């Protein structure tokens, strides 16, 4: 594993990535095993967001999160909303909740080989999952999304330890850093019970890791699963359903979905997500095998180009795609990535 890691790093260095880029080596999204007895944080209700400047930032963060299309053509380049993957407005355990993510950053990420602040992590979402353009560091958008995440995390922790009162206000600069740092202001009652390591691995973080499938995953079987359980919402062509000019139901591939650099294009990440969170509202539970198969089917379709693409699929594949995914492969006699859609496309009508 280590050997592999160093070899990838070597490729990266040889490609001469500049420090300003946000390369993405597709490290798997962090996940902690699902524990049936886990106590998940319960952040406070939105109605308790305080009045005033700080509360306004929290509110704006929530609004950007559930209706990300208001940033379309500015920072968002597809028809997705953050809430499409982070259920319940980023509040649901096992759906990459913001409260767990916030407490896990700053953190070193293999993805770009450096310590990432919380705002840098969100910038990555804009570049890849939202197939757009990352907001400038320190921008209002990043402050708002950080403030909302912080408020969920801190109110959740305070509720867990029966602390009353308002969530302490942080400066914008502090908000953008994230909660995983020694100087992060934490009430003593909490820090006495939870060390920093525990705070970075809150139960429910990320998408829970799914067991390996019994049989190797199959695009063909995935196609059947898709038609039986997914197309009602996402369309037979995977393009979702638009209502009142927004994709009420998100596109899963094609020009308006996440790009070849997003974590969700990994078959394992998508399988983890699907098993835990789909179909929406859980009217049925897919089997482990079905979740892997359908994740393979969805991710064996063409989508927007990897933003790190420099003109050669082989190079992008070697540098960033040595994992469970179909970029640069020919799963159905079509070389994926070759006809990738442009990044940051115009909105469809």
């Amino acid at each position: 594993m280590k050997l592999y890691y160093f070899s990838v790093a070597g490729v990266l260095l040889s490609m001469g990535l500049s420090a300003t880029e946000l390369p993405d080596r597709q490290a798997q999204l962090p996940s902690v095993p699902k524990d049936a007895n886990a106590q998940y944080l319960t952040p406070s209700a939105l109605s308790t967001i305080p009045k005033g400047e700080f509360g306004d930032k929290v509110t704006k963060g929530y609004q950007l999160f559930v209706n990300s299309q208001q940033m379309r053509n500015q920072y968002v380049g597809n028809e997705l909303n953050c809430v499409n993957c982070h259920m319940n407005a980023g509040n649901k355990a096992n759906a990459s909740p913001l409260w767990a993510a916030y407490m896990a950053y700053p953190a070193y990420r293999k993805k770009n080989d450096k310590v990432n602040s919380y705002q840098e992590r969100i910038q990555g979402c804009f570049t890849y999952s939202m197939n757009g353009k990352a907001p400038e560091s320190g921008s209002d958008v990043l402050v708002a999304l950080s403030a909302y995440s912080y408020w969920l995390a801190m109110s959740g922790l305070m509720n867990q330890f029966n602390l009353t009162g308002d969530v302490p206000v942080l400066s914008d600069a502090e908000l953008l850093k994230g909660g995983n740092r020694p100087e992060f202001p934490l009430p003593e009652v909490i820090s006495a019970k939870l060390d920093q390591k525990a705070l970075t691995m809150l139960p429910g973080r990320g998408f829970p890791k799914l067991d390996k499938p019994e049989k190797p995953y199959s695009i063909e079987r995935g196609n059947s699963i898709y038609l039986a359980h997914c197309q009602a919402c996402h369309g037979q062509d995977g393009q979702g359903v638009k209502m009142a000019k927004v994709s009420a139901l998100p596109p899963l591939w094609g020009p308006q979905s996440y790009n070849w650099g997003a974590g969700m294009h990994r078959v394992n990440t998508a399988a983890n997500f699907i098993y835990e969170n789909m179909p929406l509202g859980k009217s049925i539970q897919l089997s482990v095998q079905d979740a892997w198969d359908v994740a393979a089917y969805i991710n064996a379709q063409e989508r927007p180009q990897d933003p790190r693409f420099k003109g050669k699929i082989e190079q992008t594949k070697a540098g960033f795609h040595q994992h469970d995914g179909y970029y640069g492969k020919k799963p159905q006699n079509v070389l994926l990535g070759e006809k990738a859609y442009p990044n940051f496309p115009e909105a469809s009508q």
Partner: protein
Amino acid sequence: MNKNLWFSKVHSWRSTNKVTSQWAQSANFSVSRLWTALIGSTLSLSVSASIPEASPKELLETVPAAAQVCLSCHGVNGEGLGVAGPRLAGLSSEYMAQQLSHFQSGKRQNSTMMAMAMTVQGDTIKLVSDFFAAKPVAAISLQYRGDKVVISDIGEKLAFQGDWEREIPACTSCHGPSGIGAGQFPRLAGQEPSYFKNQLLAWQKGTRTGDVDNMMGNIAKKLTAAEIDALTQYFSAQK
């Protein structure tokens, strides 16, 4: 009424143009009531115009024969007639065609509609569905998710935020902003309140089924009576 009798009558009558009026009579929908409905809807349409654009008779001639059986309950413009029938305008053709087949197969149970749906078969299903899908609905001021953050109304809160502790997604995550609907997801905005409520109850009871994986039955079963009332009030008021 004996179900088999209904079926045999319907099958022997379908594909003749006279079916609709005969059917309306035998199903206790009098012709006079049909005309009342037509005149009523024409009057309401022409409130702002001094001269009606079309007489009730002319209007009736624009309705495909197969769709005429629908008018006494759904209105000549699919606008819905209170407790008599829900609004069809604003629903997609795809959805209406699907529901007609569900009434025919018994996935949706409603004695009146089961019989009425039987009069529409084959290509006419699409014809009738397209006809009502093309009827306009007044534009409403749309509310998108996140427009309101603190929501006190139970129905509106479920509509835009759901209740994830019970795995209830926001209604608008499938039915769209303000519940305007598209494709297989019906428009909820402005629907007849009694119909809306009865549908949620039917999903709960299992007398309405037919969607993929029983998505809607699963959600409806989690709703309390008070939540159903609140949702009914909220969505019906969006018009």
